[in-house]
């Protein structure tokens, strides 16, 4: 569960006197939801994601994610909080000198999972994203869509409560974007909350569901829209 209560984020800038990135934002995302977050550049999307991963702290207000009060979270507990999240990035962020298998296994090792668990879990998540036959390939040998599927497998490998996808379709073929969202919907079907930030309005209109539209640091719209697809 994600909850923001009266959150303000103010970036200090010595020259301009500072920027209000978020103003009095209140939001609640329940477990198991699939939410699109949309908005123009500078609307506050990146700031919101940084708040949710505790890269930054709010200037005022409170942020709760997966039962953690992020305003009070001590730095030494931060890794354990982050294990409850799965992150997907626009630029995939795969390690180029590791195979697909190693890229996924790497995050499990980083969270100190056993060898046996890794041997079972990695093939399972690669099956899920239909890339088991590419387990030995390197990221450079894959298409953009395939690389993003590896990134999804990696995010899902640790079995997080929430997956946060930051423009996951931004660097791939528009046709493949639909596949990526479908994959995220499949993961959501398993009970994982998915928060997807996107610029792609076509995708949002196609799939529908809960949409939060940010504008000038505030929430301009938070509601459900009907999908045009299917």
């Amino acid at each position, binding site marked *: 569960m994600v909850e923001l209560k009266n959150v303000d984020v103010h970036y200090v800038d010595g020259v301009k006197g500072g920027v209000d990135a978020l103003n009095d934002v209140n939001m609640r995302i329940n477990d198991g939801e699939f939410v699109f977050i949309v908005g123009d550049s500078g609307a506050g999307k990146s700031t919101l994601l940084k708040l949710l*991963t505790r890269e930054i702290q709010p200037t005022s207000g409170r942020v709760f994610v997966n039962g953690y009060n992020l305003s009070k979270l001590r*730095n*030494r507990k*931060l*890794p*354990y*909080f*982050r*294990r*409850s*999240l*799965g*992150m997907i990035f626009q630029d995939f*962020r795969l*390690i180029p000198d590791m195979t697909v298998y190693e890229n996924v296994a*790497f*995050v499990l*090792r*980083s*969270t*100190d*999972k*056993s*060898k046996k668990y890794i041997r079972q879990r990695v093939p399972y998540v690669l099956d899920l994203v239909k890339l088991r036959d590419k387990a030995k390939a390197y990221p450079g040998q894959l298409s953009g869509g395939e690389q993003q599927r590896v990134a999804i497998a990696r995010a899902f490998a*640790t079995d997080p409560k929430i997956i946060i996808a930051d423009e996951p379709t931004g660097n791939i073929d528009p046709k493949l974007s639909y596949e990526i969202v479908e994959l995220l919907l499949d993961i959501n079907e398993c009970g994982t909350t998915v928060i997807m930030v996107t610029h792609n309005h076509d995708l949002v209109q196609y799939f529908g569901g809960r949409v939060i539209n940010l504008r000038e640091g505030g929430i301009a719209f938070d509601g459900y829209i009907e999908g045009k697809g299917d």
Partner: protein
Amino acid sequence: MRMSNFNYLVRRGVGSVFKNAMMSLASFFVLLVSLILIGCSVLVAMDVGVVMSNIEEKNEILVYVYGDVEQSVLSHISDVLSTNPNSLSTVFYSKEQAWEDYRNSNSEYMELYDYLPYNPIPHTYRVTVKDISKISETADEFRTVEGVEKVTAPQDFASVLVNIRSTLSVIAGALLAAMIITSVIIIYNSIRSSVFARAKEINIMKVVGATNSFVKIPFFIEGMFIGAAAGAASWFVTKIIYEALVQLFRDDLTIWQIFGLSSMIQFEDVTWYMLAANCILGTLLGAIGTIISTGKYVKV
């Protein structure tokens, strides 16, 4: 942390040494030179210490006693001299023994000595000191003892020795500090370049919730591996250099034997200590460089 994951991190760390081969080699050689200089300095300092001790042992305070003192006064003087904190050993040389020795060594005037109405040589104590820098104070203390007529001590020579020793200590200390700082800086740079080369990996580790120690372990392994390897190699090179030095003093410079350089420390006597010390110091320098580097550039 699980053993299998620790092994994985060790493999990543060692792999990184070869991946950043140029920087690792540069660190290795700078560390190697530093450790050789440190090792040689320590051995030479130990040898200088041996030489100084040899010279110092030859320095003694001579305490002359009035000729007509009672046996009880002699016992008191003996007690005071031998219990002084700076006394290493005290040897009594009786006036009778001294007179006998003097007569025997100048036997051509034997008849002449019989005309002397009394033995003109006083009782003497020869006191060797533990700390040559305090020889002057010790001599002054002896002068105040009842029954003591005169005290002589080689104070000027002692102060020269003390000066030589303290100058050598300062030079050795400065050299050591410079070498250590240089080594730490070079390791720091090596690890920093490794951190930058693996920035993506570190970022992913942070995002997925790897702990601080998990992220840093491979860098520690890398720094300590380079340090330990340079330590072992420096031991070998130090051995060759030092043994050649010992041979040189033993064969060609017999003048040095006067100062006790013939009793230079043999490398085989300290070989295991040197190996252990070099490896530990190398590993430690590697670890310190890594601590500074990762502390600055790996913030989780």
